[in-house]
């Protein structure tokens, strides 16, 4: 059986004053039902652009320059906008970092959840209200009947994020794309939302594409992890392998620069330098100028994701020994 979501050689560019910048460079991955894939990386690595491109939500200056995004075997890149409207909020739903800017401030929660039910499931009136109450209850909002008539500004950030999740679940999606879903939240609320997402994902058998910069959140939620750097995927493995037996020098560097709450780290080992600007990427491997394991060939040949073990792949000429 083909995977639910298959991203194949996806390339995304943004038109800027400095010309077209390639934010996502030939990225491929697959995601099955019931599985969580964590896309991680620092600002500008292209992780959010992948999600936006996959669901046809790129801003006006963004364009898909190549590749395919197959959802259930249908190519979303080639799909007309009208069909895409049925997919978004239907088969595929998305939640974002900041619920307050994603929710509509002038409509009640009931109206906003009802909109999805009306458009995608043909529910209206009392039936829509009843279903909205069930959804709010499902995501742990107490007193859902009263909340239905409330507006986003009346709720806390955590409550709004729960409402966003309820809205995303309204049409029984099979794919949920979550872009930094807990980043704006305080740590205890973040943990509550992580638990809720994990529980829902398991119960509904959702395919969850989780985008985050927080390696802790990924370790909590993802079955598999893909690490991005400057638009390219540089390592992908199961969570256990990525955190336990990472091979790419960038992945190692990221983990070594993390202070830990569960243990005392003597000295953080930061990665030298900064992420390159997309308009002026180094030749060959883009991590080369910051890499402690750099070889002469790294400047000439772009490393591609090579199959190592079946599930653990790295794009590096001189990986950390296993």
């Amino acid at each position: 059986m083909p995977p639910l979501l298959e991203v194949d050689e996806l390339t995304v560019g943004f038109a800027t004053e400095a010309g077209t910048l390639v934010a996502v460079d030939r990225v491929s991955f697959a995601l099955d039902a019931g599985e969580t894939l964590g896309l991680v990386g620092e600002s500008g690595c292209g992780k959010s652009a992948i999600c936006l491109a996959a669901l046809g939500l790129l801003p006006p200056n963004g364009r898909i320059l190549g590749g395919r995004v197959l959802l259930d075997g249908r190519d979303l890149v080639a799909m007309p906008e009208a069909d895409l409207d049925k997919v978004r909020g239907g088969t595929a739903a998305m939640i974002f970092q900041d619920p307050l800017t994603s929710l509509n401030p002038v409509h009640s929660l009931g109206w906003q959840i009802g909109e999805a039910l009306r458009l995608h499931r043909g529910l209206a009136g009392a039936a829509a209200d009843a279903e909205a109450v069930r959804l709010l209850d499902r995501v742990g909002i107490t007193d859902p009947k009263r909340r239905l008539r409330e507006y986003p500004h009346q709720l806390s950030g955590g409550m709004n994020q729960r409402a966003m999740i309820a809205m995303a679940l309204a049409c029984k999606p099979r794919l949920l794309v979550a872009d930094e879903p807990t980043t704006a939240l305080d740590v205890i609320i973040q943990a509550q939302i992580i638990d809720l997402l994990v529980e829902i994902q398991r119960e509904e058998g959702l395919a969850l594409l989780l985008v985050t910069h927080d390696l802790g959140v990924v370790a909590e939620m993802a079955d598999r992890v893909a690490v991005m750097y400057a638009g390219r995927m540089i390592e992908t493995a199961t969570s256990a392998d990525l955190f336990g037996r990472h091979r790419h020098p960038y992945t190692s560097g990221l983990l070594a620069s993390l202070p830990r709450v569960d243990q005392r780290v003597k000295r953080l080992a930061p990665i030298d330098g900064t992420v390159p600007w997309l308009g002026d990427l180094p030749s060959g491997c883009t991590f080369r100028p910051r890499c402690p394991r750099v070889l002469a060939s790294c400047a000439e040949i772009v490393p591609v994701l090579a199959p190592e073990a079946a599930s653990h792949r790295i794009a590096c000429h001189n990986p950390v020994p296993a």
Partner: protein
Amino acid sequence: MNAVVELTDVVRHFRIKRFLAPSQQVRAVDGVSFAVEEGESFGLVGESGCGKTTVGRLVLGMLAPTGGQVRVDGTDLASLSTGEMRKLRRHVQMIYQDPLNALDPRMPIGDQIAEGLAVHGIGTEAERKARALGMMGAVGLSARLADRYPHELSGGQQQRVVIARALLLEPRLVVCDEPVSALDVSVQAQVVNLLAELQQRYGCAYLFISHNLAVVRHICRRIAVMYLGAVVEIAERDELFERPRHPYTRALISAVPVPDPARRGRRSLPKGEPPSPTNPPAGCRFHPRCAFAVERCRHEAPKLLPDGEGHVVACHRVAEGEI
């Protein structure tokens, strides 16, 4: 040891005025006491709205307390005239979360770093320039950046400028409010290491305010945990993180996601969300969410008491030896 800054029962209330409804009082800081010793890095942690940033502003003298005392080097800030306050500022500097907001967009960074010396009338212009360049080297900024403007630098470099500017005056205390929260992981580690090195070199104390418990564990020697305007626990770092006593501290630490899939889901989370500081619960403020709450917690506010094992904890159940 001498305290650089000492807070005694500090209270700070804010009034929210409304057009139709009666005005409300926010009890942002409600009876906070602690002291930061010379050369120490002291952490202040808690969730949004717990009052940690307000404490930082009280220590800087940017806000006057509604009650209680803030003493810097033994002097009550409330007793100082504007001129005396300005002199004191040399010894108490600040580093904020967003460096771009803290820097002047129209002034080359070399001038911004040296400006503090001029304000306090220190040295000749040539001396000030030399010291600014020396400090740029100490924070890892190349001297050729001195004529650049803030927007020409990366976020990490901008934060280094802010740090250089704060430390050039050789302050006794630096209030760092979320100094690395806006930075990406790899750059965050560079700045954290830099802050630690500079403290060793210049011997200043840090009041390090952050919601990021991992960073605080790494950089601070002692840590205070705040909840709804009050301190609930103070302890040395390893004590606090390995043997948290207060139920809120336990919840907070267990909620932090750890980059290790083998440790997944080991949490004991309190229900719900913190109540509004306009109307904090009576008794212990944490009691409505606390799994250990008993009748006494509902009407009697617990005092911060030493537990005999190096922690100071505000919890009846801990004081009674029940947890």
